[in-house]
Every structure is written in structure tokens, then in C-alpha cells.
């Protein structure tokens, strides 16, 4: 699996490179050919691809199952939004503090979890517990609107990229930049000393420790990187949607939506979360469209579909769609195949 996950340029076949270039080109010019609706769908796709990539750093690279990633999205969103609304500090500066706060929260969870030996299911539960505590807590913080929601001022037609105010196309390109950045960062990390330590910790913690890997440090850095990246996704969300509700931002359902792309695309792979988002979100949108076209009002059908996707994938393609697809279409070289 790591043989597939480690490659992006090295080990990618010619066919794979062509496809990659085409996909990049297609995404780069998409807003010029697509209508508003399509751009908004693509932005959502890219957002999920990005946060899925961020989650993947913890689960995919380091084997730490977090089911509370909505916590970091929410903290990033609320910190940047509060700085903007209350102090007039724009998101480009605010995101630094947003990331720091999310990393601090991640480090508290990580410290408690790893120091006290909270493992597996228990660790996952600890992450849920913190996200839920934040959800209930933010419901009661009136400084950021409490359960009534927190709203960013919107000026129609204003274009101010310095404050991340502008048209949907601006947000599209910001999301695209986030995805590309996260992809390159993930690849660089995976091929670094730290990345190899993560993989060792994921596969055989005891053996990794015996060969001198500091388990605690390796895991903590994974949490820190993942939470910082996820917080950026939160900053984006706050300025894109201009409204924040604790019940949505911190919800368990949001945490599940974040883990879906990576699971469907392939946990621990670099392309997996992106592919997963491109599979799931359009299918979900199509489903919504069909329901509305049929004149039906069925809240929950989209989520039901996501649940079914989860079950189908985990039963039939537990390693995800990407490793299978890459093998079938010969997008990457198989182990043992000559260069």
C-alpha cells in the first residue's frame, strides 16, 4: 500500500503523468467554462479533498483514527471569523492564530491520548468527546453568537482578496491552491524522515520504538500537522459561507463527512482523498438534484447514500478506489516493474 502511496512523480507511468497533467489543466481552466453552479460544486469538492487530505495525515500516514476533525475546522473558522468581525484582522493574518489554536487543541488531545496510553477505539472516542465539548461550549459563547450563529458581514459585489472577500471564482482558486499545496506538502512529508517514521509507527509501533523512533513525538507531529491544515479549511469555510453555527460546524456528521473522501479514495494514499471527494460530492449533488426534480422532499437521502457508500467501499474495496484504479489503468508502476 505504501508502495502506491509514496509515488507521485517517481513511479508514475507516462499514462499517469498525462492524466495528472490533464486533470490539473482541467481544474485550472474550469471557472472559464463552467457555470456558477458547477463552480460552487467544484469548490465543495475541492474543500472536501483538502480536509480529507489533512485528515489523512493522521489516519493514513500515522494510523491515528480521529473522528473529531470537525473540532479543528470549527476552531479555525471561529478564530478567524472572530478576529475579522471583532478586530478587523483579515484572514491571511488571522489564519496564523487559527492554526495555532487548532494545533494547541490537537496537542492537548494528543498529549492526553498518547501520554496516558489511550489507544484505538478509545482514542477515536477521545477525539469525538473533544469535538462534542466544543460544540456544546460554542453554543454558549455569546461573544461569537452562541447557538444563534455567527455571521460575517457581506458586501455585495465587493472584491477584496486581501480580506478574502470576493466572487465564487476567487474562492474556487483559493480552494484549488489549498488542495495542490496540501498534496505537495503531503508528498514531501511522506518522503521525509518524519514521514517514514509515521509509516513505521502506523505499521508496527513496537518495532518502530525499538529501532529508535520517538513514538510520542512522531504522533504529536502528525496531530499538529493535521490539525493545522484542517484549521485552514475552517478559515476558508468561514469566509466562503459567511455564517457559522456550532451545531453544524462541530457536528459529528461533519466529522464523518471529512473522513469519507479519504476512505472512499484510499486511506494513506496521496490521490485518494482527492479522488474520493470527486466521486462522492458530485454523486451527492446529483442525488439531491434528482430528488428535487422528482418533486420529493426527502431530507436524509443524501446522508443515507453516503452511509451506503461507506459500507460498500469498506466491504468490497477496503483499500479504497484509488489503489485499485491505479493498478487497473496502470497509472503507477507495480512493484518489480522496471522503470
Amino acid at each position, binding site marked *: 500500500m505504501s508502495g502506491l502511496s509514496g509515488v507521485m512523480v517517481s513511479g508514475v507511468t507516462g499514462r499517469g503523468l498525462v492524466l495528472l497533467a490533464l486533470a490539473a489543466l482541467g481544474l485550472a481552466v474550469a471557472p472559464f467554462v463552467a457555470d456558477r453552479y458547477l463552480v460552487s460544486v467544484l469548490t465543495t469538492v475541492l474543500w472536501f479533498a483538502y480536509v480529507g487530505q489533512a485528515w489523512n495525515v493522521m489516519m493514513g500516514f500515522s494510523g491515528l483514527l480521529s473522528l473529531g476533525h470537525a473540532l479543528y475546522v470549527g476552531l479555525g473558522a471561529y478564530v478567524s471569523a472572530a478576529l475579522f468581525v471583532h478586530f478587523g484582522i483579515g484572514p491571511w493574518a488571522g489564519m496564523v492564530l487559527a492554526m495555532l489554536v487548532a494545533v494547541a487543541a490537537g496537542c492537548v488531545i494528543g498529549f492526553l491520548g498518547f501520554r496516558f496510553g489511550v489507544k484505538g477505539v478509545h482514542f477515536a*472516542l477521545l477525539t469525538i468527546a473533544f469535538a462534542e465539548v466544543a460544540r456544546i461550549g460554542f453554543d*454558549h459563547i455569546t461573544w461569537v453568537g452562541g447557538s444563534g450563529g455567527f455571521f460575517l458581514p457581506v458586501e455585495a459585489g465587493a472584491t477584496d482578496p486581501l480580506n478574502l472577500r470576493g466572487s465564487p471564482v476567487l474562492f474556487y482558486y483559493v480552494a484549488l491552491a489549498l488542495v495542490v499545496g496540501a498534496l505537495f506538502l503531503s508528498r514531501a512529508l511522506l518522503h521525509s524522515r518524519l514521514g517514514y517514521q509515521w509509516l513505521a509507527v502506523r505499521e508496527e509501533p513496537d518495532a518502530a520504538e525499538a529501532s529508535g523512533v520517538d513514538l510520542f513525538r512522531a504522533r504529536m507531529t502528525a496531530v499538529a500537522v493535521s490539525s493545522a491544515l484542517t484549521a485552514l479549511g475552517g478559515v476558508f469555510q468561514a469566509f466562503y459561507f459567511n455564517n457559522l453555527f456550532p451545531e453544524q460546524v462541530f457536528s459529528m456528521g461533519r466529522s464523518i463527512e471529512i473522513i469519507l473522501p479519504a476512505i472512499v479514495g484510499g486511506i494513506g494514499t496521496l490521490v485518494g482523498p482527492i479522488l474520493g471527494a470527486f466521486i462522492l460530492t458530485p454523486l451527492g449533488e446529483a442525488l439531491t438534484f434528482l430528488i428535487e426534480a422528482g418533486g420529493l422532499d426527502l431530507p436524509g437521502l443524501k446522508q443515507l447514500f453516503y452511509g451506503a457508500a461507506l459500507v460498500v467501499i469498506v466491504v468490497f474495496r477496503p483499500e479504497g478506489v484509488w489503489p485499485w484504479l491505479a493498478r487497473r489503468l496502470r497509472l503507477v508502476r507495480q512493484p518489480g516493474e522496471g522503470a
Partner: protein
Amino acid sequence: MPIDYYLNIAASGLLTGLVYGLAALGLSVIFGVVRVVNFAHGEMMVAGMYGAVLLGGWLGLDPLLSAPVMAALLFACGWLLQRGLVNKFVERPEHMQFILLLGVATILVNAMLMLFGPDARNVQVPYSFDTVEIGSMLLDAVRLRAGAAAIVVAAALFAFFRFSRTGKAIRACADNPLGARVVGLNIDGLYALTFGIGAAVVGVAGALMTLLVDARPQLAPEYTLLSFIIVIVGGLGSLPGALLGGVLIGMSEALAGFLLTPSLKSLFSYGVLIVVLLLRPQGLLGKRS
């Protein structure tokens, strides 16, 4: 009389906590034997609630009488789920099991949302406003009945595992699956049976819960998390621990809801969970592994 006030609140918390404990008991049984965390537990509980609501609406059945019906139905569902899906995952990595049941949970809760809508539904019982005076305390009749029924079901479950041959076989499975296989026990069959029993227990807990709370799909993930918290506080795999944890959480919720605001009450349970995870990760009555 402030002290009577607190006693009263603690006592109603205790009774609610017994129902919580019963739900958690189901989770604990499944985890203790099959070693799979049933992430769809709260969803099954809410299914039990809707079952009781429907039976109450159609036949005017008291939730106490709907409980055995829901037990039978959920037993069948749990048995099928284990046979058809979960059994393939027993040997797979933990996060795979988790994700599988997360998927099942998502399907269940949204199916209920589509079937019953987001609005709260309840069952009418003639004694819903009655109170019973015990000493200086005034307790709701519904709460007393639900708590008493939870004790009866829990006792029956303890007796089953302690004295019956099948119960002993299941315990053997839990202690040593390989050894159990060696002496000729049908592990897969016993796993399915156990999952069925766990589902039946939480179905009963759901039916009883309709006496105390209106059924809403949104309750499902809350109850899943609540059952987890209780099981971890009490000790994974310890049946008395699950009941004790339920009572503890029920009482702390009731008191927190009274002293602070009701919307903050679950914050308290998460606080209890985090403290227990850190200071005594095996739970109050759990054995150190």
C-alpha cells in the same frame, strides 16, 4: 428543603441512569464478546423508541409491553447484521470495523429521518403525570417503571450469562476464542447470538426510554456516544460496570441540568469521560488488560 430537592433530583437521575445503563449493557455485551464496537448502538436504541411509538399509536400498547416485541425484532436485526456483515470484519483492523458500523449507523439514522421526519414523537400512557411519594421524595411514575423494568432486564441478562449453558459458552468465547473453538463451540453462531442479544437489550432500553423522552432521529448519535461514555466509565466488558456507569452519568446529568442549564448537561458527561480515560482507562470496574 434544599437537601430534599437534591435527593429528589439525584433519585430521578438514578432511575433515568438505569435505562442508560441498560443501553450501555448491550454495547458492553457486544464488545466484550465479539470485540467489535457497535457504532450503530444509539441508532438501534432510537429504532426501539420508534417501534414503541408506533405500537403505542396503532394498538395503544404501553411501552413496557412493546419492549419484548422490540427485543425480538432487534434481536433478529442484530443477528442478521452480525451474520451478514460484521462477521467478515471480526479479524480486520479496528478502524475498518469502526467505519463499517459508522456506515450502518448513518444509513439507519437517515432512514428513520426519512420515515418519521425530524419532529418529536411520543407515546401516551395513562400514568404519564402521576407521581409516587417515597419518604420525602416525589418521583415520576414513568421514571419508576422504566427504572424498575431496566433492573429486571439487566438481572435476567446477568442470570443468562451466569447460569445458562449458552451464556457460559458465550463467556468462554469472550475469554478465549481459540480455546472455545478447540472445545467445539460454534464461534460464528455464538457471535451472531451475542450481537442479537446486545441489539435486543438496547431495543428494550429504547422502548423504555419513550416513557421519559420523545423519539427524535437526532437522539441516535447522542445515545451512541452516551453508551460509549458509560461503558468506558464503567469498564469495557464489565456488565455491572455498565449499569454503575449508567447510574453515575444519569445522576450527574440530572444534577448538572439542575445546577447549570439543561443544555450543558452532556458537557458534564464528557468531562467525566475524559477524567476516567486519563485516570483509570480501564474504567471503574474494568480489569486492567
